[in-house]
């Protein structure tokens, strides 16, 4: 899995905003903001990763139980798929 080409995150006013690059249209009506955890998962996914790699990245950074990390990763992937931001 990896993040589709043509998107990046930009930090604006303390938020991590998903922005289409270059000439592509930016629609604030459906703008996706990532929190700190989301931004970490995004960065991990940028170069391609499996679900277990994402869980490992969370566990390395945060002191949370593995099942919580797994659920957060699962939720994140669902949202990214819904927004059509993932290449499988």
């Amino acid at each position, binding site marked *: 899995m990896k993040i589709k080409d043509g998107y990046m995150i930009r930090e604006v006013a303390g938020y991590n905003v998903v922005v289409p690059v270059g000439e592509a249209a*930016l629609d604030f009506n459906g703008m996706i903001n990532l929190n700190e955890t989301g931004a970490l998962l995004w960065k991990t996914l940028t170069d391609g990763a499996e679900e277990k790699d994402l869980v490992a990245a969370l566990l390395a950074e945060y002191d949370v139980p593995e099942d919580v990390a797994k659920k957060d990763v699962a939720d994140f992937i669902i949202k990214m798929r819904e927004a059509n931001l993932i290449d499988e």
Partner: protein
Amino acid sequence: MSNSGKNVEGIRLAELFPLIEEKLKNGGEISFKPHGISMLPLIRQGKDSVTLEQLKEEPKKYDVIFYRRADGQFVLHRIIGRDEEGLILCGDNQFVKEYGVQKEQIIGIMTSVLRDGEKLSCNDTKYLRYCKRLWLRRKYLYGRNFIRRVLSKVKRIFK
């Protein structure tokens, strides 16, 4: 319509401004739902979305432009004329004109409005017909306001 407030995500437009400016300079488009009632009936707050692009030609009458006032406020209003001071702007729901707006203040120009799922282009003949009738709407709004002021003065006299 002006925006010194927040968009739905709670981020102030002023904070997103570097992103907006960069996107437009790269030839991209921006869409958002404007805040306020000054561009009724064309743009309904919370319902309708506008698309902006970079200004490519000289700003002209009937263009709806997104610009920043000296006090920092972002505004989306229509050009209704020009004089020696600069551009003359007015919202579609207003009759008080704003004078002296400079081309350098313009961030982008509106190219379409999304209403009830339908995209209305600013090149559409229906839209241009609407623009040409706005002077009449301004007269009506001024007249209505005049009558209200007269009536409230009359009420005070007879209290």
